[in-house]
């Protein structure tokens, strides 16, 4: 029984890793752009398809494919900023609707390029790390956990210790006051979109060999990310990470012991309870980022 609990906990840590990468990117974009990016799940999907193209089809090393995934999806973020969010600045609802349109375009492009069927991606490594008699974790999952810790720590350092990190937070908290300090909002918007989208892309790329890759895979990801950022408090990066971990543990344990459908219901119920008890989320305030 103890082994089962430990094993489930390990699985939860893996889930928390990629969920927090996606959720933190979503929060960052919301903070700086003031827009809820509905296409965020499809950015995750795009990252996964980069691995299909670069690793599975072109037989390049997996590591290269992951880096390409980060850069390519980061650039999709820049494209969204330029084509959608910049012309629709001061119109958050318009930005939201435009991001839904972008979501459909990405899905259609993935379908045209790769078809609707699930993609087969050869496993990166068959190695399984044995931690006890009945506790083990595939090495590919360890990669995801390590990558999430490294990337989130790097983001933390960037936001708290560097001038561009301060500029990013300043523009999220008060864009006009930020401009008065010489910060160009157009520039911080680009940085936020590149990082936010890139994190979704690398999460998709890293998990691609472990999940089913298809053009509609973004749906469940975005629903999870929304639950997490609402529970954590929209606009709070710390909240997003802590809520990702909490959600991953609840969801994984309920899935293991009661089944997936019950787990989804539990997750949504938790979100409702948080919304009723503390509408700003556990770590949220009226301000952003």
């Amino acid at each position, binding site marked *: 029984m103890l082994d089962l609990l430990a094993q489930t906990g390990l699985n939860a840590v893996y889930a928390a890793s990629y969920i927090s990468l996606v959720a933190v990117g979503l929060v960052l974009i919301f903070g700086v752009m003031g827009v809820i990016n509905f296409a965020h799940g499809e950015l995750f999907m795009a990252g996964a398809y980069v691995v299909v193209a670069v690793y599975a089809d072109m037989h390049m090393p997996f590591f290269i494919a992951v880096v390409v995934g980060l850069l390519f999806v980061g650039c999709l973020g820049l494209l969204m900023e330029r084509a959608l969010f910049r012309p629709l600045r001061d119109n958050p609802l318009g930005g939201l609707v435009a991001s839904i349109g972008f979501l459909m375009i990405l899905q259609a492009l993935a379908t045209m390029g790769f078809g609707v069927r699930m993609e087969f991606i050869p496993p990166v490594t068959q190695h399984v790390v044995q931690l006890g008699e009945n506790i083990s974790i595939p090495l590919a999952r360890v990669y995801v956990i390590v990558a999430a810790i490294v990337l989130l720590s790097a983001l933390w350092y960037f936001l708290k210790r560097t*001038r561009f990190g*301060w*500029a990013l*937070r*300043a523009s999220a*908290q*008060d864009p*006009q*006051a*930020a*401009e*008065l*300090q*010489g*910060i*160009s*909002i157009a520039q911080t918007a680009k940085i936020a979109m590149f990082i936010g989208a890139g994190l979704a892309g690398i999460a998709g790329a890293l998990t691609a060999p472990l999940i089913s890759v298809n053009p509609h895979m973004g749906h469940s990801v975005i629903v999870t990310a929304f639950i997490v950022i609402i529970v954590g408090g929209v606009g709070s990066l710390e909240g997003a990470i802590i809520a990702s971990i909490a959600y991953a543990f609840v969801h994984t344990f309920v899935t293991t012991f009661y089944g997936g459908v019950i787990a989804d219901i539990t997750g949504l119920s938790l979100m409702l309870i948080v919304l009723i008890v503390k509408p700003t989320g556990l770590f949220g*305030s009226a*301000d952003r*980022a």
Partner: protein
Amino acid sequence: MLLEMKGIAVNYGKINAIRDISIQVPEGKIVTIIGGNGAGKTTTLRAMSGMVPITKGEITFEGKRIDGLPASKVVAHGIAHVPEGRRIFPQMTVEENLRTGAFLRRDKDAVENDLEDVFKRFERLRERRTQRAQTMSGGEQQMLAIGRALMSAPRLLLMDEPSMGLAPVIVEEIAVIVEEINAQGLSVVLVEQNAELALELADYAYVLETGNCAMEGPAHELHDNETVRAAYLGI
């Protein structure tokens, strides 16, 4: 002349916020802009720092045209704006707020010196260095906003209603600070609802009325002027 505004107009949509305003700020002086609500004081200040586009006229700073530049570029010329309502970054620490004020500066050693100067001037900010800005009192936030503006090493400081919402004793403190900053050679444009205070501090004053300049003159003269006393000093 350090800053010169000639025949400025600013429109918000179809409304003329200011119609025809000319203001001169000499080097090393405190110039104040007073007037009632909606007279266009804040808009005039925002036009100076590039926060709102002007539709008429021209603005020069140290002989260079600065109208048409976005706010993020005007700072680089040496104009720092302490906005109405302080507008500090609430979730950032006091030190992060101050360092963000030096965002454009590359002279690292001088930035450290200026940070030390700000902490010397406002000891309370030093004590609260790692505290989130939003947790501070109104007076402390106003000091932070001034400190943040000083961190850009400006030659002209624009202050919009620094006394707003503060207790009288804090207002006195802010007034002393403005005088000290000015005594060290920094020119100041002060927009104030509190005309009494503004006219005491300033060398020269402009009185705005519905987007136009109704009167101007040395501050002490306006302070003793019958019309000004009746309209703005409530005496």
